[in-house]
């Protein structure tokens, strides 16, 4: 006879939980193995440079264009709100702090996960499906050292740079809308920004966020690719999981880090 639905549900829930914990443990061991092969990644510097090119340079278009538009929207929305309180000259501060602390790291990481993370997963997954990783292993070359570690470090190095560029173009966007188009005083825009944005509290914390997101997204991407079932369906599923898991992890980590970093310093 079939089991009562509630039991089946409990059993499914238990199985999923065990599976999730098992995967987390496996992913952690995988990360440690990758980090252990760091010297290999930097000994093969051209390989890591190539990955920086694929993950970083090729993501520039989407990062710069998105940064510009996010900054322009911030300029419009920020001006609208600030003008109500007669403090539209604080627009520079609003744009810069929003971008440096939050939007720069977070939106750049979300874009990075969908542009570069998915590509990394798909590439590694397809290499596995076509037995390229097995072949490498049979040639006594460790795929974690040759394929995974360079991609991991390529992503980790690219992410903070992309985050910084996103923020910079965003501020430029805010300037174009606020100063050039709306007519906020240019001196006020820049000088208030300079006075209000602290290098250690704001810029450095933003960079730390970007760096942590870089580790998280690239770790998820390489792990999902390496663990993908070697079929078309398996690789497509892994690619989707990379984007979805990355997005959730970025937002959760952002909340935790923000809580620690900006606990009412001002």
């Amino acid at each position, binding site marked *: 006879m079939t089991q009562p639905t509630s039991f089946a549900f409990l059993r499914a829930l238990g199985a999923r939980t065990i599976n999730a914990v098992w995967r987390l443990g496996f992913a952690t061991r995988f990360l440690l193995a990758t980090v252990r092969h760091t010297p290999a990644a930097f000994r093969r510097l051209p390989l890591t440079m190539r990955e920086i090119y694929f993950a970083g340079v090729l993501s520039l278009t989407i990062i710069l264009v998105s940064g510009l538009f996010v900054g322009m929207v911030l300029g419009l929305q920020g001006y609208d709100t600030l003008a109500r309180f007669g403090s539209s000259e604080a627009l520079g501060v609003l744009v810069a702090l929003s971008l440096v602390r939050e939007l720069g790291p977070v939106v750049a990481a979300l874009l990075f996960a969908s542009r570069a993370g998915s590509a990394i997963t798909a590439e590694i997954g397809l290499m596995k499906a*076509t037995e*390229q990783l*097995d*072949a490498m292993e*049979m*040639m*006594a070359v*460790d795929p974690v050292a040759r394929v995974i570690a360079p991609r991991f470090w390529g992503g980790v190095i690219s992410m903070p740079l992309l985050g910084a560029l996103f923020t910079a173009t965003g501020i430029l966007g805010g300037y174009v809308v606020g100063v050039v188009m709306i007519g906020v005083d240019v001196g006020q825009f820049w000088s208030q920004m300079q006075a209000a944005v602290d290098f250690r509290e704001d810029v450095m914390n933003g960079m730390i966020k970007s760096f942590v997101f870089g580790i998280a997204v690239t770790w998820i991407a390489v792990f999902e690719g390496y663990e993908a079932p070697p079929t078309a369906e398996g690789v497509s599923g892994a690619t989707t999981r990379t984007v979805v898991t990355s997005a959730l992890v970025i937002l959760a980590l952002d909340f935790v880090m923000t809580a620690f970093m900006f606990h009412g310093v001002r």
Partner: protein
Amino acid sequence: MSNDNVVEIEDLSFSYSSGRQVLSKINLRIPRGQVVGIMGQSGCGKTTLLRMIGGALKPSQGDVRVFGRSLRDMGQEQIYALRRRMSMLFQFGALFTDMSSFDNVAFQMREHTRLEEPMIRDLALMKLHAVGLRGAAHLMPSELSGGMARRVALARAIALDPELMMYDEPFAGLDPISLSVIGQLIRKLNDALGATSIIVTHDIQESLKIVDYIYFVADGRVIAEGSAEEVKASLEPYVHQFVWGEADGPVPFHYPAADYVADLLRGTRA
């Protein structure tokens, strides 16, 4: 005598963690210098056997000795050291798709030797010439036909002059010309390099032309062995069905199912 065996497998059994037994009590010897075929239906455990010889899987029971050394207690480093003396041609070549044919062949030389680039270039071109594809050195794997890709993979497999060559279904999906070219290359390269070869295949006609000895595997066990002539003349029902390609026999045409009529009637009742 046993020193002349490159691979010795004793009472080897293997089951996956799910409990499914793939190999049971396998015994076989691969003598130095020979081309040995391991044949059987798809899914009978041939590829698993090859992976065990390469040290990618550990036996559940029994032992695998390669070059006189047991793989059972070897660590990763030792297995890697052993793998530098052997090579494997994968079913569909498994060429690195982000590298040209030339770079694929040069891959192991760059990873495992300290040779200068001009020397690597000459060696890689010689290997490609041996499979007739020196002119395709600059092509990417996506620009090669199936047969060409298999030949480039073969050139890559012999890059470091291995003592033991393993071929996993080298004839799968090839046209008759490519099939014959690969078959002849396997034999010629084996003899020219003084290597030993293991061919895992279900392509009986092509492999009978080139192998010295054959093991038949069915349901995870060796059910017959012998030279090509002995296998052709075998009266063992499974071997006979396999060699002559009969649709029905010990290996049934139908996948196990419920009674045919009962199955159809169930549909009309519903």
